[in-house]
């Protein structure tokens, strides 16, 4: 069976930074795959290329057997995307935010009227559906965003740092919802994170990225074997593969500013 996501030798350069360098990986249908790495490792750039927001300098990728080069429109029909920054409209209610995105995904009439309450129910947002999103908590906003991304029952959902800025309780709740999503719809998930625990809890396989490259890839146990650290936690493995000094260096002012801004908006 053809993989749901197929990435071959993807490269992307921004001026003097090689953001993504010869990245290749496959994700099977129904699998949850994590791209893990410090800030600036190239995770978000890789995702942006796969969801057709950025074009690659070279290399090829296929989502649901459609090429990012020749069939970006087809890819957009097959995917849902939850961006790193909070992307719901605060002035609109939860329901309105869902309705608008349902329509953008081409849903209408009875189908849309049926899906929106379903999603609200599934994401535990029914009671607050008619409140402006500006009054939602951070965890509720993230749940709404995930709800928006699955309205059209996409084959693949991309989650870019889904729990950044959330407190541990909200994070755990969200993990529960993501797991339900897989159980209920069998969707393929690709998520980026720099929380080791998140990758460990949610994902079948993990790729650790650093400076635009994939350093290592496999299940948690495979990574342990490769590091020859049979009892290592994900944290220890991360430090082993990336090196202790790297993560601090690559944060950069822009990244720090961005994550603080998100944290601030999440309250």
């Amino acid at each position, binding site marked *: 069976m053809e993989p749901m996501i197929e990435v071959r030798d993807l490269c992307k350069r921004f001026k003097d930074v090689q953001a993504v360098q010869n990245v290749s990986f496959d994700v099977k249908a129904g699998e949850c795959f994590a791209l893990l790495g410090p800030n600036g490792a190239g995770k978000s750039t890789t995702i942006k290329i796969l*969801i057709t927001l950025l074009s690659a300098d070279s290399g090829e990728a296929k989502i*649901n057997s459609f090429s990012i080069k020749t069939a970006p429109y087809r890819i*957009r029909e097959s995917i849902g*995307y939850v961006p*790193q920054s909070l992307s719901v409209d605060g*002035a609109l209610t939860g329901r309105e935010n869902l309705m*608008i995105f349902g*329509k953008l995904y081409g849903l209408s009439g009875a189908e849309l009227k049926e899906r929106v309450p379903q999603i609200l129910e599934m994401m535990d947002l029914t009671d607050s559906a008619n409140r402006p999103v500006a009054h939602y908590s951070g965890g509720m906003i993230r749940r709404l965003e995930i709800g928006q991304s699955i309205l059209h029952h996409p084959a693949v959902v991309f989650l870019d740092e889904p729990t950044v800025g959330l407190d541990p309780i909200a994070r755990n709740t969200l993990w529960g919802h993501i797991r339900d999503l897989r159980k209920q719809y069998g969707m393929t998930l690709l998520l980026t994170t720099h929380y080791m625990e998140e990758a460990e809890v949610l994902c079948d396989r993990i790729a650790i990225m650093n400076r635009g490259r994939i350093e290592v890839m496999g299940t948690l146990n495979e990574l342990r074997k490769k590091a020859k650290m049979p009892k290592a936690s994900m944290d220890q493995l991360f430090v082993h593969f990336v090196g202790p000094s790297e993560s601090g260096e690559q944060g950069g002012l822009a990244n720090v500013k961005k994550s603080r801004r998100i944290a601030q908006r999440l309250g």
Partner: protein
Amino acid sequence: MSKKADVSPSVLANRRNPVLLYFYHMIVIIELETIKMMKDPTEILSRSLQPVIWLLLFGEAFSRMKAVPEAGGDYLAFLTPGILAQSITFVSIFNGLSIIWERDMGLLQKILTTPIERSALVLGKMLASTVRSLCQLTVVLSLSFCLGIHLQWSIGRVFGLLGFVVLGSAFFSGLSMVIAAIVKTRDRMMGIGQLVTMPLFFASSALYPVSIMPGWLQFVAKANPMSYLVDGLRGLLLDPVYAHGFLDALVLLAATLVIWALATRQYPRLLT
């Protein structure tokens, strides 16, 4: 496998006629913008004060100077279409700000990963700003009625007015999106927006006829789309003396189509 996502990739595309889907998407964008506008009418209300100030303060005082004989003794009537055009331009030219804000939030990125054609998104945004401009039209016309300014009325003229308002606001909000895609930050957009609106306004026939301008300025005024908007509105609201309505509409339509194409091309650059 029974619970697998029920999307085979072509489900959406086959569900609808692509032309219908295109317009459906465009209307969704207009709907989104209109809902937002209605939730917080402060912006529209405060912006509608601007033409009121121009007509009440500037218009009333300046008309006493009899400085524009071409206005035929009724400067307020001459000024009204100019102020209408100005307020349409001003509400539309800052459209780019909201687009940069949406980009900063991540909303734009998310919309661009849905199956909406770029040109439908841009056209939706351009037409959504028409809703704001229609509020300005209502304010200016109501005020001119209260002030007893003598304007021409007929059903045909009203439809003509609506046409010009749509074209004018679509053009200037398209222009604003092109600028936003080039300057990329809100601060710069504020600065450039201010910088663009003043010359557009003063190098047009909004406050005085083009014929009293020096030669070089007349040339600028002729290349200025706002002149055609003012001229078209003036032709409809005042005597037929000013009427080159068909040419005005044609120039504005052409300019709008060009800016639509440009904005569609430039818009995704906001992401990089």
